[in-house]
């Protein structure tokens, strides 16, 4: 059913009895051409683009729980392409382009809101690093503006300009960046893929791979064996666990990242704002909650929860730049499992096992990558060659030394 104000009105007259499931909750078949492991944003987007762009519909998405139960439903909803390295800018800008047309493309309102992403700087050194980054973006045809202190003050007068330990000196602004209603992305892709014939199988956990003569042939699941010629892994924080079933060791550690939302408020914070002298970023959702987060807890975790010191650290960062939030209340916090790579950049590549493909290592940037990750992974699986925007995200780049280290932190995942 196509969604529009007309379908909504028509259904309202019928007491909303006419709606049908957003996606089909499919029973798994015995065999498919392609299996995607992971019914998160990336997996569902991959299935959608396999069907829509490559005409491949004998595809199933296997989700161990309910779709969207991973990081696509537990992030701070930010989209942006303000990277420094050309390889990353190219990929994330491709994602931005897809975000910009996404809702019309999959006929689902994911509330893509290009409200601007502003990164504050607090020293000359940071300013110059942001200039380097902004210039790299401009060279790649991406919008970037370097604001000085007065420009930032005019835009966001409520920031702490007068009493700050690290005074705000300016910011790097990407106006096309913004936020997206995260859950709706999963549902929109699920609906689009399902409508085109993809099977979305929930409560189906992969327990092992069937490998024959160095070639993948299927998976063992909690709902039986399923055969497939090609299998894509898109399981974010669980990448190492799933890859280990195929005997692979990855340059990845899984870490917990917490995020928080406040009670609902009338419009207060217009943009996405990130603090440059501490760990804090914030935006306000359409529903009115302030959505914010900060740094990783720092230790490896599969528990989807963190500890109090980081909660306090994030709130401290928030108060440092916007002391007006002191009396507002933190309502809910959650933790996501981040697949942190050794250089902070992702992997979309074939694996040493023929027919087995890997989409992993999204660190805490996986949400904004969703459309492009799906697009590029679908292209790789369908054609066995990388889509140009993702051609640098190779698994062998670590051995070659062609690493993509935006922050210059080296091979320590929790610093990226």
């Amino acid at each position, binding site marked *: 059913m196509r969604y529009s104000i007309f379908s909504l009105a028509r259904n309202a007259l019928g007491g909303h009895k006419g709606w049908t499931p957003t996606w089909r909750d499919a029973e798994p078949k015995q065999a498919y051409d392609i299996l995607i492991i992971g019914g998160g944003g990336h997996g569902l987007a991959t299935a959608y683009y396999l069907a829509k762009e490559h005409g491949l519909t004998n595809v199933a998405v296997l989700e161990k729980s309910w779709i969207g139960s991973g990081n696509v439903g537990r992030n701070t909803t930010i989209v942006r392409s303000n990277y420094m390295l050309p390889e990353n800018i190219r990929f994330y800008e491709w994602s931005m382009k897809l975000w910009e047309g996404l809702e019309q493309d999959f006929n689902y309102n994911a509330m893509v809101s290009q409200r601007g992403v502003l990164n504050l700087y607090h020293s000359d050194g940071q300013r110059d690093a942001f200039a380097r980054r902004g210039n790299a973006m401009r060279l790649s045809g991406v919008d970037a503006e370097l604001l000085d202190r007065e420009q930032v003050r005019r835009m966001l007068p409520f920031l702490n300009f007068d009493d700050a330990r690290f005074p705000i000196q300016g910011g790097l602004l990407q106006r096309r960046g913004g936020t997206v209603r995260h859950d709706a992305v999963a549902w929109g892709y699920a609906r689009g893929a399902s409508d085109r014939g993809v099977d979305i199988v929930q409560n189906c956990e992969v327990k092992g791979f069937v490998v024959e003569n160095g070639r993948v042939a299927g998976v063992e699941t909690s709902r039986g064996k399923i055969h497939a010629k090609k299998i894509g892994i898109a399981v974010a924080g*669980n990448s*190492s*666990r799933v890859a*280990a079933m195929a005997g692979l*060791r*990855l*340059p*990845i*550690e*899984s870490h917990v990242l917490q995020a928080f939302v406040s009670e609902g408020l009338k419009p207060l914070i217009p943009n996405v704002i990130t603090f440059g002298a501490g760990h804090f970023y914030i935006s306000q959702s359409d529903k009115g909650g302030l959505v914010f987060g900060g740094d990783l807890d*720092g*230790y*490896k*975790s*599969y*528990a989807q929860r963190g*500890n109090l*010191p980081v909660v306090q650290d994030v709130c401290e960062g928030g108060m440092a730049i916007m002391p007006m939030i002191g009396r507002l209340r933190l309502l809910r916090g959650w933790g996501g499992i981040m697949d942190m790579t*050794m250089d902070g950049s992702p992997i979309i590549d074939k694996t040493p096992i023929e027919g087995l493909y890997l989409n992993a290592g999204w660190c805490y940037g996986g949400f904004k990558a969703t459309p492009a990750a799906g697009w590029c992974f679908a292209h790789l699986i369908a054609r066995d060659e990388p889509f140009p925007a993702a051609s640098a995200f190779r698994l062998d780049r*670590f*051995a070659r030394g062609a690493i993509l280290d935006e922050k210059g932190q080296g*091979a*320590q*995942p*929790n610093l990226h």
Partner: protein
Amino acid sequence: MRIPCPFCGLRDSSEFVTIGEASMSRPPADAPEAQIFDYVYLRDNPAGVNQELWYHAQGCRSWLKVARDTRTHEIESAVLARGGAQ
């Protein structure tokens, strides 16, 4: 999370920094490059008990090898990390 530092007793994890897994020792100087690559870049990253390296930065400055469950954050033991993975 509270870490049982052999010198300082149970201390809050915010006094420590961790650099991750202690699954492998630094290979000797004459080891093949591939082995050093594995050491620097590849991780087991298990869901369960694993050995990790923690540094008591705001305490005794000891590097500890901590056996910790990544599913529950429960800590089984913490010993001095002398010699890496052995």
